[in-house]
């Protein structure tokens, strides 16, 4: 099924029986537990395009099947962007929300949860519900958008989202500080204490990369003032950030959240690692997921061979996740197999 409008999507969910797999661009298909074969596959890519965009309001409403890169192109014409830079360049906006995916810009802007200000979702019974709205500051009602972040299509079908936008920075510079994972923790502290405010601060396989964004004169000065760093040429900077994204290309890719100072402990489990060093969010080509899970709780297996279970021991909040799942999708229609063995 490939609905072309919110009404068609609602009908597709409401008027069918059986299990449903929600699929965007298919870039995270195997993430978070391989989905079981379902009675229907619901593709969201027909729900594409901007709904409303008023640059002066710094918000954009967009259909969930829109690829992020297409949206970014449209925003760039008005000198703006979504401050989200995931490695999956083909992914849809809805898919990025459902997978709570983000890239190095999480250092300053967080992830989809922090940029999402409104959502329209179709529940397993065909109910169409909205939360949030079109304004950045809004505390009216529950924030269902955040609940859907990291839900991997198991709570509802994301149909439309409203996102916060930011101005495109006029200039940027990337600085490289060669260091191992232990030194990276110290360097991170130094960059932050120097109040240089990098937009991204990412350690990747032997170097700490600091990207500065802002006015030309300022990024130049901040790059030069970075302790122990060398400013990279534009092609070298692009190559360095491509290496960060390439960590996702391995066969077993894991994301985990730890205290930032645990970076060296995480690195021990990785053959390749990209880590938002000040935030404590790591993406790694893992050697042994079980060992990683023994040490850390907040572990999500992204890409994985079938033999590796996607989830470990249920953490403290899993009983609540199950309760939420029961209330949103009592018949278990959506995304069976995801989150197995948690539910």
């Amino acid at each position, binding site marked *: 099924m490939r609905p072309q409008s*919110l009404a068609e999507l609602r009908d597709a969910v409401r008027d069918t029986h059986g299990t449903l797999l929600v699929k965007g661009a298919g870039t995270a298909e195997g993430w978070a537990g391989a989905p079981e074969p379902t009675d229907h596959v619901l593709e969201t890519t027909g729900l594409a395009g901007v709904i409303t965009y*008023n640059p*002066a*309001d*710094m918000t954009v*409403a967009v259909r969930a099947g829109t690829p992020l890169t297409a949206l970014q192109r449209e925003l760039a014409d008005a*000198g703006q962007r979504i401050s989200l830079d995931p490695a999956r360049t083909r992914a849809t906006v809805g898919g990025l929300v459902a997978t*709570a995916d983000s890239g190095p810009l999480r250092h300053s802007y*967080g*992830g989809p*949860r*922090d940029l999402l200000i409104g959502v329209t979702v179709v529940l397993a019974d065909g109910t*169409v519900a*909205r939360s949030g*709205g079109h*304004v*950045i*500051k*809004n*505390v*009216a*009602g*529950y924030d*269902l958008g955040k*609940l*859907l972040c990291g*839900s991997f299509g198991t709570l509802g079908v994301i149909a439309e989202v409203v996102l916060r936008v930011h*101005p*495109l920075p006029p200039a940027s510079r990337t600085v490289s500080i060669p260091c191992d994972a232990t030194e990276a*923790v110290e360097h991170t*502290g130094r960059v*932050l*204490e120097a*109040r240089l*405010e990098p937009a991204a601060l990412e350690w990747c396989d032997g170097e700490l990369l600091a990207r500065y964004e*802002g*006015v030309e*004169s300022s990024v130049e*000065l*901040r790059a030069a003032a970075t302790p122990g760093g060398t400013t990279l040429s534009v092609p070298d900077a692009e190559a360095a950030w491509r290496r960060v994204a390439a960590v996702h290309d391995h066969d077993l890719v894991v994301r*985990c*959240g730890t*205290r*930032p100072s*645990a970076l060296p402990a995480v690195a021990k489990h990785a053959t390749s690692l990209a880590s938002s060093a000040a*935030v*404590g*969010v790591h993406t790694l080509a893992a050697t042994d997921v079980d060992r990683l899970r023994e040490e*850390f*709780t*907040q572990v999500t297996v992204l890409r994985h061979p079938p033999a590796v279970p996607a*989830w470990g021991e249920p953490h*403290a*909040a899993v009983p*609540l*996740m199950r309760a*939420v799942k*029961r*209330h*949103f999708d009592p018949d278990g229609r959506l995304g069976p197999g995801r989150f197995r063995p948690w539910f």
Partner: protein
Amino acid sequence: MSLTDLRDELAARLGRDGIVTDPAHLRTYECDALTGYRVVPGLVALPRDAGEVAVAVAACARYRVPFVARGAGTGLSGGALPVADGVVISLQRLRRVVEVDPVDRRATVEPGVTNLDISRAAAKYGLYYSPDPSSQQVCTIGGNVAENSGGAHCLKYGFTANHILAVDVVLPDGTATRLGGDAPHQAGFDLLGAFVGTEGTLGIVTGVVVRLLHTPATVRTLVANFDSTKDAGDAVTAVIAAGIVPAAIEMMDNLAIQAVNAAVDAGFDPDTAAALIVELDGPADEVEARFADLTRLCAKATGVTIARDAEHRAKIWQGRKAAFAAVGRLSPNYFVQDGVVPRTRLGEALTRIAEMGDEAGIRVANVFHAGDGNLHPLVLYSEERGEHERAEALSTAIAELCVELGGSLSGEHGIGTDKACSMPLMFSEDDLATMRRLRAAFDPEGLCNPGKVFPTPRLCGERPGPYRPHPLESAGVIERL
């Protein structure tokens, strides 16, 4: 009666000084800062730690007695309004700063710690806690989590939800759990994000881990005066269009300035129609370059004052943050409203508010976070002159106007008791029913702060009313199926 049994049990478990039962003392809990709604609770529990909170909640669950969490009672939407014959669980005794970790830049605190005390505890490391609601000297972090509190500086830095790493929660059945983790990556649903801002309806927070930021290298602040709120609004638009993200842009109209000047010597021009406070912060070169742009963009200003030093800046902010209280000097009574409009419709909103005020014969002072369209109209009236109902109606109409203009009923004060009945203007029955599914997952018995956020027949009248188009539909912003 179950409340009597519950009282005996809590007296035994928490001790005689762990509960409040005498009517005079109970009365001090009858309302929060929305003083128009008052309900004396049946009992107040004063737990000393997370374990005692769990004991109190578990006992309430067993006797099926509703309970309401309360921090400092500074909430402006009646979110901490007690339930008659219910229990108030005060978090005032949980006020320890457990840990400030300068290496991983976070603090672990109990819910009764005030917002400002977190920054005070972090200051020796050059760190601070960013969200800064105007009541930050007294409001508690537990209350901030419940309300997803904002503040003047959330334009650049975000709201409470963006600064909380984890919360320890006692769920409505008395079990304790943790939402969130050591970093903003959660394995599974973002239950932390879903929890923050639910106004105490999903559980009681007993511990909070907050992110701390380094204080910015440079801060520059200016106050620009304008001949009209429209000119001031145009300047805000120009600043945003130039790609500047200020730490804060605040606007005050003349009436608000008069009030502030009577209370604090912050140096605002008493004759100006509107004043903008704009603050930039960050690395020195970035700030200096942008500040030069900023002063240029305030070309229509009739006067610009640049804060000389930290002391001067603090004075300006003291004035701004005192605005609500200061209005008490202009008027014996007032309502503080809180609504949001898309920033580009600020001018229209202000014009309509002025017209509505004139029509009602009631003065409205305006203080607001101009950068994100968050209005705080102050509706000035006199109980003595019998203006209460007219003023209340005007205040509600202003919030509803915000929805009509494509905005929100509340930017930071919450829905609570105050606006629950207006929720159907902003959300359909299906929207609200879906939110209630989340509530049911956490609180199937509906004991945790009942009667808040969602409209109830008892609060709002029996009949839900006929179908009306959603205001966003009428405005062509959204379409129904």
